[in-house]
């Protein structure tokens, strides 16, 4: 049975996939599906309750929360995708170096990676953002760097295994450069694992971006970022709880969607791992 038909039989994964498609559509089609301009202020309607003119209510400046949630999906997905790309590319580079070089270079790199993997990720991201300064781009970099160690370990592991196989040994003996080995023999073997990791990473990247933005160290106003929306809503939590709680719901749905798809892909691409935590 191929991977897709295995994936298709997983009901939770399909729900996740549907949610991801909705998110992607709302990000791409934001200007057409959002009922209002996300930046349009209407101070007399500030903190409007959900229902009525504004389906999900209005925030402190009378901006439509639904429109801002829809535009917020752009930030979440873009930061998620770009940081996943940083993580995968960085991890490929470092993992290949460690795997092919071996010896003390490998040993030192892997000890460093173990430390980074074990270190609380939010503290790591905070340290990076504290150094780079806030902003969408720096947030993406911080989130991406956080993903590098795990990818490095996946890549290094398979480089080490595959390096010992006869066909890679033969290719090396024929003088194939490391880059060609990587592209032709090693990459195809790790792509499924990387896809699974990248999908689950997207979930955590969205969470981390939201957390950094919530603390005021991520995406800056007036951009519509879900974490930032929760943070500004917090100031009026006791008089208008919907301003903070509605955008948080969007974060949860997005994270849940990528977690479900990632779990489904893992089960579908590697049936041996089925059911493991």
């Amino acid at each position: 049975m191929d991977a897709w038909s295995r994936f298709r039989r997983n009901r939770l994964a399909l729900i996740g996939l549907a949610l991801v498609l909705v998110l992607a559509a709302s990000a791409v089609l934001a200007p057409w599906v959002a009922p209002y301009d996300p930046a349009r202020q209407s101070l007399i309607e500030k903190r409007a309750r959900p229902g009525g003119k504004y389906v999900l209510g209005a925030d402190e400046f009378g901006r439509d929360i639904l429109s801002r949630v829809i535009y917020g999906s752009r930030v979440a997905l873009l930061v998620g995708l770009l940081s996943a790309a940083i993580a995968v590319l960085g991890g490929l580079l470092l993992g290949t170096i460690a795997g092919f070089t071996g010896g003390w270079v490998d040993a030192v790199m892997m000890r460093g990676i173990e430390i980074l993997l074990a270190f609380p990720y939010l503290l790591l991201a905070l340290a990076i953002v504290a150094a780079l300064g806030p902003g969408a781009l720096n947030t993406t970099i911080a989130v991406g760097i956080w993903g590098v160690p795990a990818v490095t370990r996946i890549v290094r592991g398979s480089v080490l295994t595959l390096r010992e196989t006869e066909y890679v040994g033969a290719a090396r003996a024929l003088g194939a450069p490391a880059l060609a080995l990587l592209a032709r023999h090693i990459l195809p073997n790790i792509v499924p694992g990387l896809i699974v990791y990248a999908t689950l990473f997207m979930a955590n990247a969205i969470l981390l971006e939201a957390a950094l933005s919530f603390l005021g160290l991520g995406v800056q106003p007036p951009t519509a970022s879900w974490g930032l929306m929760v943070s500004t809503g917090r100031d009026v939590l006791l008089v208008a709880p919907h301003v903070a709680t509605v955008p948080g719901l969007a974060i949860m749905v997005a994270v849940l969607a990528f977690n479900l798809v990632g779990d489904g892909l893992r089960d579908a691409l590697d049936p041996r791992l089925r059911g493991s935590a």
Partner: protein
Amino acid sequence: MLTFILRRLLLAVPVLLGVVFVVMLTIDLLPGDAVTLMLGEHATKDAVAKLRDHLGLDKPFVVRYLDYVGRVARGDLGRSIQQNRPVAAELADAWPATLELTVAALILATGVGIAAGVASAVWPNSFFDALARLGSLFGLSMPIFWTGLVLIVVFSLWLNWLPVGGAGSLAHLVLPAVTLALPSVAMVSRMTRSAVLDVLREDYVRTARAKGVGEVWVLGRHTLRNAFIPILTLLGLQSGQLMGGAVLTETVFAWPGLGRLMVKAIFARDYVLLQGAVLVFALAFVVINLLVDLSYGLLDPRVGRQG
């Protein structure tokens, strides 16, 4: 056993040195002049020069790094730029609150997570199992700062049972601890479920059942004891995530701990204080994982003999 502890303690030293190095290096890479950023555009030349000298910014990075490590080794973490108090004193004021919060969350995560995981594994595919697995899926997907705000709305605003924020009494601790614990409860229950299921498939469990050992005894004596090792490893790693989560939880609930101090330090660009806070977190993380490693020996006699 003693050599094992000593060796692990020695291994912790390069970890801490590495953490300090990375933090100082990232701060060093800061675009623009850190001192001008700290003092603002209109600082006098004299003030800038004084702060540069105080921070030793004129010296090369390696010298400053070794300087800092040397001073830390003697217990001197420098003076915070904003409050002009010893960093050690500021950290000493803040860390008990964070310890209280994370320990409470860890107890909750362990207790609820293991109970739910064991119940799920003992009655797999039951209604409870489905509910617990769905719950853990949500637990892992909810942003912790949002969970906190929702709990405030429900329990402080609507029900008026618990205070909105601050610290001081057990009632103040409930909401922050639950908030911080939720993602870990989800992780622990997932891990417990799969670990217990794995052990229940072992031959020795079948043997125990075959010779008529009661279910409770099979579970307590044969299963949990063996399932505990992966769970314990996870708890060590979770304690790290709890420290990260504490930064968010403390911000939401105005909890006067290290996390809030760290965020304040970042906003104030108080890098001396920031370095100190990160160092304390790293130290706590190293110590917790050392304790986890040591407890393997208590749970699994094989570890001690090899170690």
